[in-house]
């Protein structure tokens, strides 16, 4: 579905060049649960950024089916993100003056075939909190709102940037369980970047990165349930 070919990303800061990605080649199939694993500075966030069109590549190509993402204009890329991609962030990024329902609605409104918002809030266990503002929700609840928002427009792929980075183990596993359900029940492609090796146990494919390179590509036939993964 997504084909990344010879992708490099170089950041220029004054006279200093930083090679964040070096000739990356990878494929992401429909319905896969992918984990990009690596320490800080390994290039995993950069890889997520360029695959999802949040950043441009210095060289190489990225295809989504027949569409070359690296050749799209800003407007076309926005349309692509709107129609196909969802995002979950470590910091939840909820809009503070909107209620839980309204935050999800912001995601749903731009989808062509969105999920019913109340159903989604029920799915993430926030029916009672639908009219609460972010400051009235716990960290776990806020993340669940963020998950519901990313799912609301019914995207094909959901990118997750350290989704459990701010949560304790119990809440983290709840969220991961939710992602796993999205993957299995709704056949959504999930791409998670993390430095937590335990999460990799849930993945179909694990992309291990270091210094801007893929150092290992692991295919897993047996995936663990979110509740069963090792933590820490």
């Amino acid at each position: 579905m997504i084909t990344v070919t010879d992708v490099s990303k170089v950041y220029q800061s004054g006279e200093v060049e930083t090679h964040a990605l070096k000739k990356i080649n990878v494929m992401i199939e429909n319905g896969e649960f992918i984990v990009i694993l690596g320490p800080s500075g390994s290039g995993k966030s950069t890889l997520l950024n360029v695959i999802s069109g949040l950043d441009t590549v210095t060289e190489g190509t990225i295809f989504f089916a027949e569409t070359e993402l690296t050749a799209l204009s800003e407007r076309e890329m926005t349309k692509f993100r709107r129609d196909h991609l969802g995002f979950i962030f470590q910091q939840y990024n909820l809009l503070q003056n909107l209620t839980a329902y309204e935050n999800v609605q912001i995601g749903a409104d731009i989808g062509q075939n969105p999920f019913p918002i109340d159903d989604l809030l029920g799915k993430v266990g926030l029916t009672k909190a639908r009219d609460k503002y972010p400051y009235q929700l716990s960290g776990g609840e806020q993340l669940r709102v963020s998950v519901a928002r990313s799912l609301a427009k019914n995207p094909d792929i959901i990118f997750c940037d350290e989704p459990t980075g701010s949560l304790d183990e119990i809440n983290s596993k709840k969220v991961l369980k939710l992602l796993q359900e999205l993957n299995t029940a709704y056949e959504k492609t999930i791409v998670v970047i993390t430095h937590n090796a335990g999460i990799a146990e849930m993945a179909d494919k694990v992309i291990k990165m270091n210094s801007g390179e893929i150092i290992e590509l692991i295919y897993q036939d047996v995936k663990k349930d979110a509740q069963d993964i090792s933590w820490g």
Partner: protein
Amino acid sequence: MLLKNVRRTLSKKWMQLSAISLIIFLSSFIYTALFYGISGIEEPTETYLADHNQEDFAVEMMNRLTEREWLEFSGEDLEGVGLVTLEDVKKEDPDLFMEIIHERKEAFKEENSGVELELREMKTLYFDASNGEHEALALKDAASINRSFIEDGQKPAADDEVALTQIYAEKNGLAIDDDVFLHGDRYTISGFVLFPDYTLPMFDESFALDAGKQTLFLFTDNAYEDLSENESFRLAGTWTDEEGELTAEEEGTAFVTHLIDTKSNMRSGAVYDELSGSKAAGLGLSLFISLIAVIIVAMLMQNLLQAERGQIGILKALGYRRVNVALPYLLALLPLAFGMLVLGYAAGYAAAEPMKNVYLDFYLLPETPIGQRLDVFLLAIFAPFAVFTFVSGWIIYRILGERPLALLNPKETDSVNALTRVVSKCLTRAKGAVKFKYLHAVRSTGSFVIFFLGIMFATILILFAFMMNGMMERMTTEYLEKMAYEYEAYPEEPLELDELPPETEPFLVYPYAQYEEETVILQGIEADNDLHHLYNEKDENITREINDGAVMSETMRMKFDIEIGDTVVLKVNQQKTEAEVRGFTAEYLTDKVYFDLEELSLIVSDGESTELYSGVYSLSAPPEDDFATVISKQGMIDQNESLEGYLDVMTTILIAGSSIIAASIMFILTSFTVEKNFYAISLLKVLGYSRREVNGMILNSYFVYMLLSYVLSIPIALAALHFLVVFMAGYGVVLPLELEPVSLIFTLMILIVIFFISTEISRRKIQRIPLQEVLKRYYE
């Protein structure tokens, strides 16, 4: 080092700082310019008016004899029918005239104790100058009340000398010892004169105030008496005891047509309200702008510190004391505020002189150089500076009060305001983008208030400007331009109607009638005349209506709430006359009632004559030998047009000034909004909202809010306008201010243009916000 860092941060916000600087500058500039400009006139004026004994009140009186006077003095040499005027008496028998005046003064003093009275004698002259016809009021020198003041040079000592106003001389390139020609006679300018009862060059009911085409004249008494122009009289009065209430209800004071206290008298007293009103407006305006500046500075400080809270947290954790951390922020911003206040003060002081001269273009007042005052300096600079320092210090103190660890984390929102909840409820069924748009607009109460104030301020001023535009034209030239005559002239000696020159049409003016205790002018014209038609507001010719009753000026309709078909009772020579109102002419300067010429002649002559008239209208200039006064219509139009020119300049200044302030406010607030919503904007982009949609969600709420503020400002503007109309009505001036629907559209268009120009930079800023921002530490 810390200071350097803060400065570096601030340098990235140079556009915001420039806009804030402009607002701070204006707060000090407006106060200083208006205060110095006005006090530069006020103080010498107070001294001048006191030293030259300005009248406390004026007794306007009938120019013809009352019944009682007629009976008392009929044994004297007074014969003939019709109007026997004081002027006629003075020409025939000066002693008798003085006796009548003495009687009048005594009768008035008998009814009103504790007053002193002096006769005021004056003649209006029209003469040709290089740039058209000019008008002058020659006042006979007074002995006690309203004594003349020679600004420069000296009083006329010889009969071929004249003193006139300095502003008239300046505008016409005249100097002392130069010559002026009046109807062919040469007069040498001996000096520049002012009279305390004419602080405005208002010589009649018209609103012409062109000091370049109108002047006051002081001649020797002999030269004055030799002038052939018509003469008019009034009594000038002062209180010798404590001020009381004046009356003129006894038989002996039947000659009184109007009693007017100086402060309510436009020609002499408008300056008092003008000065106090302008001072109050200056203070109010600068306080208003200072308030906006203070709120904006507070918002800037808050945004700045919140953006730097992590850094502040580190400094606190390292052991820096509050004062060490606070000082760089204060040192970076307060000198800028102080500098702008000083600059505003300096510019205001420099602008005070030309501003004073604008006043002196209209007001006939002595001029002295403006000196600086410590209290103004302190109020213009240190008062707002103290407030800025206090507000900034308070915000810094609050943030520095947080624990270092809390500062190291982004500021968490821990509440939403009540307005957010209300708007959220109202928008239950709306789309998410719509909810976001309006909820983020009402999120900050400070922004909400300041934005509303800015739009309201701009709306009021722009609407005022549009309403004022054309007002003077409606009041003066529009009516004159419709008239077919070119000249109006007043005969030296009464001529028989059949002796009138060809192509002239007679009219009769009786200026002493009364309607509901107010003096009104009665004018008789022929119903089938060709030169002076009467037009109503719809521009329909209603001249023939005077065959069946009276036609009144719009001023009377507005003042007295009269309607067509009403029967009005007018008092003429102590007799009551009834007339049915048949229409209203689009005249806004005087309270005037038109009758058929013969009808009015019968009214004022107690049924004795149908052939009275006081002047003629003419297409060409009537011979000066037969007519003491010839007034050119074009000359009157020219005099009024210069005032229209001033109003046009004022209109432009009002629109431009208010637009700059509104644009600055819009720019600052929208750029603050973009900064505060940095992460939200990035998020919306990542979610897939297009550039247009993001712009709409962040900035278009301001657009809708601008529209709402504009709509709310309209009634406020109209209320302010009503206040102005009532204020002017206190001087007997009816302002035909009109709110034309098109003005509302133009005002809205100006605001929309200002909005798009001032938010353009914010739109570009939105465009530049990178998508990856959303992946960083997020806070709002």
